[in-house]
Every structure is written in C-alpha cells, then in structure tokens.
C-alpha cells in the first residue's frame, strides 16, 4: 500500500511543487528528483507484486497484476531518464530563447501531471476512471505540444486536442455501453459494475451484442491515442512540433498506455463473445497501421516526423501481435512494447541533441554527426539499428517471435509484414546513414553531450535481445497468460 501511495503521490506532489518553483533555476533538478522517487516506488511495488501476486487496493478501485506492473515499471523508468535528458536539453532551449522561464514552469508541472495520469490509467481497476485518466493525459500534454507557440505547434496542438477529444468521446460511449451490459449482471447502480476484476469474473454472462458494439467504440476511441491508422493523423504533428522530451514520452509511454487500455477491453469482450471478432479487428487495424506507416516513411523530411511514423508502425505491429492471441504472440507483443518504448525514447534523445546542434529538424540540414559529436552520432545510429530490428537487439527478438507465430496462425499476413518491414528499413536506414556519416563543414563540438540515458536504454534493449533474465521471462509469461489465456 505504501509503495502504491508513493507511486501516485510523488508525481502529484511534484506537479504542485513545480507549479510554484518550476521556473527557478533548480526546477529541472526538482523534476528529476520527483521522477526518481516515482521510479523507486515503482521498483518497490514491482518487487512486492512479483513476490506476493496480484492485489487490490483502496476499495478495489486500484488493481495491480503482472500485466500492468511491468508497464508501471517501464513508465517510471522512461519517465526518470526523460527527466534527466530534459535537464540539459531544456536549459539550452532557454538559452536559445525558444522558451521563457514561465513556460518552463508550465512544462515541468505538466510533465509530472502527465506521469500521474498515465500511472493512474495503468493501475486503476475502474474502467470509468481509466477513461478519466486517459482524457487527463491528453489535456496535460496539449499545452506541452504548443510550448514553442509557433504556428505549426499551435496547429499540431489543436489537431491533437480535437482528434483525441473526439476519439476519447467514442471511448466514453463504449464505457457507457460496457456499464449498461455489466449492470444487468452485477446489479443496478452497482459501484462494482465498472470494476475490471468483477467484469472479468462474469464476462461470459455479459450480453454479446452490446459488448461487440462497445468494443467497436472503445477500440476506435483508445485506438486514436495508440495512433492506429487511419486515426493516426494527430501523432506525427504532435511529435514533431512539441519539445523533444515530450516526443520521447508521448512515443515511448502514452502509446503504450493507450494500447494497454485496448487490451484490457479486448480481454473482456472476447470472453463475452466467444468469437475471434475482437482479435480480427486488432489484426486488421494493426496490419493497416504497419503498412501505411511504412510507406509514409519515405515521404518524410523532418527527422521527428520520420520517427513518429516509425512509432505508428511499431504500435501497429504490437496491436497485430495482441490480435494473434495465444501466449506466445502476447509474450512477443509485451516484449515489443518494452523494447520499442526504450529504443524509441533513446532515439528521440539523440535526435533532440542532433536537431538542437543543427538548429533544424529537417534531415537535409543534419549531416556528419559522427564528426561533430561521436556520442550523438553513434547513439542515433545504434538506436536506428535497434528500432529497425537488427540482431542482436531486443526488437529483433520480438519481431522474430511475432513473425514465426504469424506464420503458424495467419500465414497470409507474412508477405505483407515482411514487405512493410523491408520498406521501413530502407526508408529509415537510407535517411539516417547520411545524417551520421555524411560530409560536413561544421566544427567539432567543444564538449560531448551527456547521453547516459540513450546508452542506458540501448543497453537494456541489447540485453533483452541476448538474454531475458528468468524472473523477467516469468513475469512476461504471467502477463501473457492473463491476456492471452492458457
């Protein structure tokens, strides 16, 4: 209980403290300190859950099981490293005059609030509260996307707000339908009728027709936030125009949390329908996202947009894997979510430094990083290789598992997936190579930027590709068992 209170308490206290002190010189340090506290609480919670099994907290409103505790740990870890990365990054932005101290205060306070909403969404047992937290996550990041107040960032922020607002309204309708179906089984005005654990216990008695309709709305609603095609159009804009630390947490964390919501809903609906309709819908949306994003990668000229489209592709792949069902595919999907969020945030850290030095996000303006700053150059190159699924990185392991399972279960999808992955490889590698190794007249940087978070993330991704520690594998297996059935 105490760990859990700390987990939500640290970001909440951080948001309030930084609302007053975020503009001071020590603002970034306070931000990092609160993120560190959150991470410590998440670690303690994880250790306890592994030892003692799932538990319900605070009148069953919160529920922690192997599935969400691994996402909680991941969210807290990336939250911590991003706050470390943003410390020097935002300071340079301030020196360049792109933001004022007042906006820095907003940034720090909203950053903690964003972490709070995501952790609430992950740990809540109440499907209604999940909705409230997801909407809160959108609202806390809208003003972060528009932090630079450029016309482009305002456009991106507006698009983000409206598209996700409409999407999340669909999810609310889905939640209402879910409540409507649950109320018949769990009793009228039941406070328990929206609790996931109770719904899970009676899922085979829920009315299939209503649940099918509810799932369509929930998938469209939360799917908008996952960035599933054709609902993805907010994602590249929001990633490209916001400050880079925000791109990293949007891509690495928010998409995961939204996918988590979709998967929780899928478990319920599949139990009620006794059919594979939800799985087939997930596969369809996933495959469409993979293919569409892979081909759109070629048209990108802005480096952050390039990697935003790559996020759509990878979330599509994870969604597809959840759609395949079965423990192996689900295991692969969970692993893919983990390695994608680590590798992608590492890339955004490197990209942030590269774009800051070049003074432009256009890929044509970024050249010869390896001579300008070897750490940034290698960070970007290794990150790109990791995200493209080259062995021995972890993305290779998860993609390999997904492909082999797909080969057995849905052989028709293999050529499509391989084509998309090939196209994505050509598009991204062809762009990154000249940026890292190209000719440049720029002068070598006097100091090397601190890129500890980048290499820490890539090291974990590498480790997951070579060797998954037994307790981690058990943990993934337990989660896969919860979602995918025996």
């Amino acid at each position, binding site marked *: 209980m105490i760990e859990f209170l700390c987990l939500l308490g640290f970001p909440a206290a951080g948001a309030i403290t930084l609302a007053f002190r975020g503009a001071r010189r020590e603002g970034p340090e306070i931000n990092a300190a609160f993120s560190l506290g959150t991470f410590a609480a998440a670690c303690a919670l994880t250790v306890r859950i592994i030892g003692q099994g799932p538990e319900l907290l605070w009148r069953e409103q919160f529920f922690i099981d192997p599935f969400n505790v691994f996402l909680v740990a991941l969210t807290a870890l990336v939250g911590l490293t991003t706050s470390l990365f943003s410390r020097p990054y935002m300071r340079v932005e301030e020196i360049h005059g792109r933001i004022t101290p007042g906006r820095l205060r907003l940034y720090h306070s909203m950053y903690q609030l964003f972490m709070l909403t995501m952790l609430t969404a992950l740990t809540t047992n109440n499907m209604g509260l999940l909705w409230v937290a997801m909407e809160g996550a959108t609202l806390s990041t809208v003003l972060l996307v528009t932090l630079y107040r450029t016309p482009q960032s305002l456009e991106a922020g507006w698009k983000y707000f409206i598209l996700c607002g409409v999407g999340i309204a669909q999810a609310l309708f889905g939640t*209402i339908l879910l409540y*409507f179906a649950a109320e018949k089984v769990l009793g009228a005005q039941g406070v328990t009728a929206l609790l996931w654990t109770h719904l899970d216990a009676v899922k085979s008695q829920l009315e299939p027709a209503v649940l099918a309709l509810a799932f369509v709305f929930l998938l469209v609603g939360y799917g908008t936030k996952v960035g599933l095609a054709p609902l993805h*159009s907010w994602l590249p804009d929001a990633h490209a125009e916001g400050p880079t630390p925000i791109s990293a947490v949007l891509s690495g964390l928010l998409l995961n949390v939204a996918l988590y919501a979709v998967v929780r809903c899928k478990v319920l609906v599949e139990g009620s329908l006794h059919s594979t309709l939800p799985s087939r819908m997930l596969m369809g949306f996933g495959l469409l996202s993979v293919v569409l994003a892979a081909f759109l990668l070629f048209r990108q000229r802005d480096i952050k947009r390039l990697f935003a489209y790559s996020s759509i592709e990878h979330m599509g792949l994870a969604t597809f894997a959840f759609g395949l069902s079965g423990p192996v595919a689900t295991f692969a999907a969970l692993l893919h979510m983990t390695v994608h969020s680590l590798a992608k945030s590492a890339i955004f850290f490197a990209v942030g430094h590269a774009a800051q030095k070049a003074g432009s996000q256009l890929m044509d303006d970024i050249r010869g990083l390896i001579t300008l700053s070897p750490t940034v150059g290698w960070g970007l190159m290794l990150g790109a290789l990791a995200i493209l699924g080259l062995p021995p990185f972890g993305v290779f392991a998860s993609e390999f598992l997904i492909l082999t399972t797909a080969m057995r279960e849905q052989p028709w999808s293999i050529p499509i997936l391989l084509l998309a992955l090939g196209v994505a490889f050509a598009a991204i590698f062809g762009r990154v190579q000249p940026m890292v190794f190209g000719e440049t007249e720029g002068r070598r940087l006097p100091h090397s930027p601190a890129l500890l978070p980048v290499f820490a993330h890539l090291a974990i991704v590498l480790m997951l590709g070579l060797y998954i520690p037994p307790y981690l594998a058990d943990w993934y297996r337990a989660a896969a068992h919860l979602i995918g059935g025996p």
Partner: protein
Amino acid sequence: MTHIPFNQQLLNACAALLLLLSFAMLSQRRIVSLVSLYAVQGAVLAVATLLLAWRTGEGNLYLSAFLTISLKVAFLPWLLHRLIRRLQVYWDTEPLLNISGTMLIGIVIVVFAFGLAQPITQLASTSMRNAIGIAVAVVLLAFLMMITRRKAMSQVVGFLSMENGLFFGAMSATYGMPMIIELGVALDILVAVLVLGVFFFQIREQFDSLDLHHLERLSERQ
C-alpha cells in the same frame, strides 16, 4: 392505446427538445447564439435528469442534475461568453457545407442513429429506453457540426454538445453512471475548456484570427 404517465410524457418531450436543439445548433451561425443554445441544451438535460430522479428516487441523479446545472448551464456558457467578448469572435464564416445541405445530412444521421441504437434499446429495462436513439443522434449531430465548422469556437461547442449527448445516453440506458465517474468526466470537461481558453489566446496571438484555415499547413508540409 396504452396509458403513458405524465412524468414519462414530460421526459419524452425533453428528449425531443434535445434533438430539436441539436438541429438548431447545426443551423446557427452566430457564435453567441450557439453558446446560448448550448446552455439551453444543458438546462433541458438538467430538467430531464431531475424528472428521472424524482420518479426513480435515485439520489445520484439529483447530484448529477446539480452538476449539470452548475457546470453546463451556468459556468461553461459564462466562460465561453467571456471568451467571445475578449476575442471578438461573433460570427462563424460560411460553413464548409451550406446549411440546408447540412440539415439534410442531419436527418439521414438521425435515422442511422436509431438503427444503431436498436440492439441497446431492445435490451434496456429502463423506462427511457426509447430515448437512447435520440442520445446517439445528438452525439452524431454534434460530430457533424464539428466537421462542418471552421471556427475553433464552434468546434468546441460541438465537442461540448457531444458530451451532453453521451451524458443523456448514459442516463436513458442505465440511469446514469456511478457518481465517481460522473465527477471525473465533469472535471475533465472543465479542464478541457480552461485549456482551450488558454489555447485560443495562443492561436489568436499568433494568427490574429480564430479561423481554422490558418491551421492547415502541416499536412501540406509532410
């Protein structure tokens, strides 16, 4: 012909009024009137909630009616009117589709909404189940309004009206959601409007206008 209690007739009248107000909003181009229509919609919603609370004796519904009145009838319209005055946006430009065309599409949408609500209506045990179709229609009409309008302010009113429809849907299908959820949703709506207020000033500062066609450059830039 079966006898319908008076209270029920009043509730049905409220439902019909909500639908009518949705159409009125769809055709209204003056932004000040649009906000007023939104306030009236909130008031009708509150009356319906009170009627239902009186009949079913659900304490929760009284609370949610109170929430509706304070937030959707009083506070949000006041805030929006203030914003309109500060920003001096009174008229929406010609919508992307002319009014009569929009109304025709609206009628098709209502028919579609009743079709969509059919399975839920059949299963619902509440006395207001016939209103579920209307709730879905209100949501979809608000959606149509968001698509066809250019001004940021009209899109926001569309968004809020959509939430009204969802709220009415929850009420007619299940006598309202649990209180904690309703509070959470209300909080989110409130924060959303406050964030938007800030956002409007940023757009205004940058473009000297709240016309959204300024915000169409990113898609061309790809």
